[in-house]
């Protein structure tokens, strides 16, 4: 029976203590614009890309221990039901967010009273 509950906590680096400078902001913006410009050059190809399902990236960086990093805040959590931790990790690896270098995941089993 797959009835164990797991709490997945998403942590993202906190931006609160290190406020980006105007030039950091420019860098972040430039990074985004470089990405968007791919589409401007390729307008005709885009119809196909748009009709497809969202790209799913897998990444093997998920670990099952608590991630203790400075400058991080608990961003959120979700509950997953699964048979065991491995299964839950597999599910989570399907999520595009694991590619995001600014976030990390912690998965904990919840003991239901």
């Amino acid at each position: 029976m797959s009835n164990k509950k797991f709490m997945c906590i998403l942590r993202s680096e906190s931006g609160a203590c290190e406020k980006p400078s105007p030039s950091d902001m420019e860098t972040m913006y430039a990074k985004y614009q470089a990405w968007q410009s791919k589409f401007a050059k390729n307008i005709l190809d885009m119809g196909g890309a748009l009709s497809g399902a969202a790209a799913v990236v897998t990444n093997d960086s998920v670990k099952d221990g608590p991630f203790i990093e400075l400058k991080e805040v608990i961003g959120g959590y979700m509950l997953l039901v699964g048979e065991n931790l491995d299964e839950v990790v597999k599910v989570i690896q399907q999520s595009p967010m694991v590619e995001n270098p600014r976030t990390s995941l912690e998965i904990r089993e919840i003991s239901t009273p």
Partner: protein
Amino acid sequence: MSNKEQQDNIEHVFRHEYGSLVATLVRRVGIQHVEMIEDAVQWSMTQALTHWALDKKPDNQAAWLYQVAHRHLLSEFRNTVRHQVILNNEYEQQDIEFSPDIEASLSSELSDALLRMLFLACDDHIPIESQLVFTLKSLCGFSVSEIAARLFVSEANVYKRFIRAKSVLIKQKFNMDEINQSLIKQRISAVHRVLYLVFTEGYLSSHPDVLIRNDLCEEASRLTLLLIQNPICNVPESHALLALMYFNIARLDTREDQTGLVLLAQQDRSMWDQQKITQAMEHLMQSGQGDIISRYHIEANIAAEHCMAVSYQDTRWDKIVGSYELLENVAPSALHILNRALAMAEWKNAKQGLEVLQRADIPTWLTRSYHWYAVLADLQYRDKQYKSAKKNAEQAIHLAPTKGIKDLLKRRIANYNTNKSIKNSPRHSL
């Protein structure tokens, strides 16, 4: 803390807890009882008003509210014919004191349930306007009369839309635990769309007296943040949508003053919320990945261009023109053409802006809206075609839906009459 502050504080807690409390109780006892559940949640909040004003506030406010609402709901059930159904429900046994452990799992369960309910409400079988009402009522805690005022429709209409959503959800054998990854992927665009609608409604409200509804914008961004905090919903589009909201929220307070709406060129840029702009930029950066670009990406980018410009004059209008072109490809709408024409007029000149309009295939619905006449009048005026500019401006005022927008247009036409040169037309996105 003064009474007033306490009251405000409680209302703040309420608005933010309402949806997750309703969703968690729906998950336990079923969507067919949603109205009874909402009553119970409201009841717990009135209880909180009395108790929290007298005693110390509980440490875990959500748990307190949940417990009181749950008890109230059960006692209501006992008094009705649904009695039997509930007695068979295993959750009947769960009316217990909260230990810290249970509180921790409850708090994650609350937000988990809220998201699940949001995804269930965004069901293709439910008309989009019903999805919107259901979200506002059951997840954001707005009353029927508040929603009616915000959407500019009658209360009866709001209620009809709500019932429509509810009856579909009951028929669909609503089961919150069946929300899985594939369903989330299938529906996430619909969820984005509803949140975008809530935000847009707040950003330039169709309500005749209130132009900007900060509370709607705030609710929309709060729910979008919740999406981002969920590993499966943390997709690039969610970041783009939140970036779009934050860039615009950063400017909200400067968009309105005692005289009415303030246009972009007149806004006090030093009053823009730099912290929000920073947060927006972080989300925009995170949205820039993957093979798919959405309208939210491009709209966020346009908003970013404005927020990053030191002045109206120094705005990179060429980039904005390019983004509107891209937007027309990604999410075609004639409104984008109007925006592009205005940006083109800033980048090059008014004549080239008018050319954009002449070349475009403008649908009839647009030629019946005030937007069309207002843009035409603006560009014609700047191209020194004073006579047609005046005629079109009058038409725009005639068609404008709200007093605020009419007043704004009248102030512009007053300028046309005096033939005062209007430097840097103060108009940006419609």
